[in-house]
């Protein structure tokens, strides 16, 4: 390292070239600090709702109270940091509006996350809600997109009973519900396959005008799903940014008085996101300047 530095030109150009050769682990440390500091100081920025978050909010808001809504927890703890905030907000929004909610999961661990949401959101902020009447937990069903396809013809064949083992014929919320077309809105909180794309391909396409469809997605998956908006998806929440915007819309209209932390997770996580993005942009600029400095120095040396 010392030998290499001795060969570099003195002054600012040498410094810039040296910065381009920095050990990448210092960058990891800088990213850690950039994320930890705003978290510990609870740095937050105001959010301006984007078009897609507003469209998702409007879709849920536009159906009359008492409508049946199906929320699919198509993710697991690996992506919960990104998707749990929007799932919480969607659940709170539907419950506040007075919709009757059915929860299901195409991912095995999605069921546990839906259970947590029932405990932490539904029963915490809406203790008056009654299981079987206002909400029902259908649980996980194996079969990936096959489950969606089956539900377009018969929900009872996919889910003979809810997660607690009660036959769906005895659940008041599902009285008269034969297919997913009997729901007024379906929301898929999706981390991959099966998820939002499969709901569009096998659910929405089979019954194009039967229900409204909205999705919350991870950042990685979003570019794959963007072509479906707005024709096949009425609303879309993209990653933590979409969650933060939507959270703001929901909590402004339906505020909660106690332990509101679970409905502010998206906005809380946007603080570190902002600082980390600034750092990354700075590093990209610095890397390019360093490359140009090294190129100019080599050219001059020749």
């Amino acid at each position, binding site marked *: 390292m010392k030998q290499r530095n001795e060969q570099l030109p003195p002054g600012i150009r040498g410094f810039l070239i040296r910065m381009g050769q920095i*050990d990448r682990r210092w960058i990891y440390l800088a990213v*850690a600090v950039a994320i930890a500091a705003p*978290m*510990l100081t609870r740095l937050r920025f105001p959010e301006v709702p984007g078009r897609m978050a507003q469209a998702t909010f409007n879709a849920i808001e536009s159906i009359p109270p008492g409508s049946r809504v199906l929320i699919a927890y198509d993710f697991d703890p690996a992506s*919960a940091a990104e998707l749990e905030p929007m799932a919480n907000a969607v659940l709170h929004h539907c419950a506040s509006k007075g919709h009757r909610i059915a929860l299901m999961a195409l991912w095995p661990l999605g069921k546990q996350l839906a259970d947590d949401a029932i405990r932490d959101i539904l029963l915490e902020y809406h203790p008056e809600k009654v299981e079987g009447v206002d909400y029902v937990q259908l649980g996980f069903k*194996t079969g990936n997109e096959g489950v969606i396809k089956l539900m377009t013809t018969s929900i009872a064949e996919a889910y003979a009973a809810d997660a607690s083992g009660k036959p769906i014929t005895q659940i008041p919320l599902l009285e008269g519900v034969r297919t997913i077309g009997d729901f007024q809105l379906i929301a898929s909180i999706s981390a991959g396959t099966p998820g939002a794309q499969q709901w569009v391909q096998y659910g*929405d396409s089979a019954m194009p005008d039967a229900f409204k469809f909205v999705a919350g997605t991870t*950042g990685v998956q979003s570019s794959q799903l963007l072509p479906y908006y707005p024709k096949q998806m009425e609303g879309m929440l993209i990653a933590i940014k979409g969650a933060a915007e939507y959270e703001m819309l929901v909590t402004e209209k339906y505020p909660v008085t106690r332990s509101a932390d679970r409905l502010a997770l998206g906005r809380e996580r946007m603080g*570190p996101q902002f600082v*980390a993005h600034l750092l990354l942009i700075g590093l990209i600029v610095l890397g390019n300047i360093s490359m140009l400095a090294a190129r100019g120095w080599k050219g001059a040396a020749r």
Partner: protein
Amino acid sequence: MSADRAQQSSGAPKSDTRLWIALLIFGAVGIFAGKLWRPGPLAEAYVEVVTETRVLAEVVPAPTSQGTSTNAQGSESLAPTSLEQENAPPTRLWVELDDPRLKSGELRRVEGVATEVWDERAKVDPKKAREQIAALESDAEKLSAPIDPTGLTREEFEVREAARMNALKVVESTRIVASPRDSIGIWIAALLTLGIFSFLVRDNPFYKVVESILIGVSAAYWMLVAFWSTLVPDLFAKLAPDLVRATMLPGLAPSEHPGKDFLLALIPLALGMMLLWRLAPRGAWIAVWPLAVVIGTFAGMRLTASIEADFMAQIAATMKPLVAYTSSSAEGAAAGSAFDLGGTLAGILGVVGVITVLVYFFFSLEHKGVVGKTARVGVWFLMITFGAAFGFTVMGRITLLVGRFDFLFNDWLGLSP
């Protein structure tokens, strides 16, 4: 080459040492400062313990003289009671000890069956748990003092005293306790997280151990999921429902068409066994047939879905008006809606993007002249798309890191306010 190696061998250890020292100092100072800032134990966990009690009860048969029967939910059915129904054993079910149907006589306890008692543990947020514990202690202290009878009639005193006793019973039955078991779980999760992070410094045995645990646990987990969510309910339960009910799923509902279910379940059983034939020393070709069924089924299913959702609907979505108005309908435009510059630009960009990218992927003509320039524009569109996708990926990955830090800072170190 050899000079580079010499530099690496002489420079890398020093750089590593500095990094490890920086990390240790950063971590130690962080934890120390954090604990000064927000005192409290590490990996604090609480649970609410609710004691559940169930007794076995049976439905008391309703008098048959009136020709009606009463079910367990209390509703009456007018179905005539046959001799077979009269002779059938009464329906039994597990109910809570204070179930009102036991008091009303609709149900009666089955003698000789012990009461089942167990504790249900539900995780409680530490901050909320501390508040609730303080509130419960305060309530218990207040409620433990008897009501002062001064100025009260006997009836008023008795009503208030009964209410106090009931409230005290509720307070005493609510148990929010520290959970060492969950605390150990948090410690293990924190150490495993740090083990994965340690790879950022360099590959090391700690990381290897954690990586192996992750792979092993994931493999075992998926095997169990497949067994319990596919093999048991979709195969075994249809082939041998009584055996499955007796050994694995006591709540398995009886099938309406057991014979049909049995015959249909033989097909996946045969295909599954044929697939496993691949492991046999001879006749590996047999495994090709079930594979053909799987591939054929999925291809058929996906083809129709993709043609509709990803082809026809996408073409329709691309056909946008090049001049947009604030109201998307033609009537709105005719009625004098405002010109939408953003919508118009988005429409034009969409059409240009689709055409130029399609031209880039059109390889039957050499990319020269007009075709070459159009394809070049298509490349720019592709690059912008990849850049946006990368940006989304970065955002997603940072959020995952924030999620882990959130766990370390709040659940493990207890630094949340």
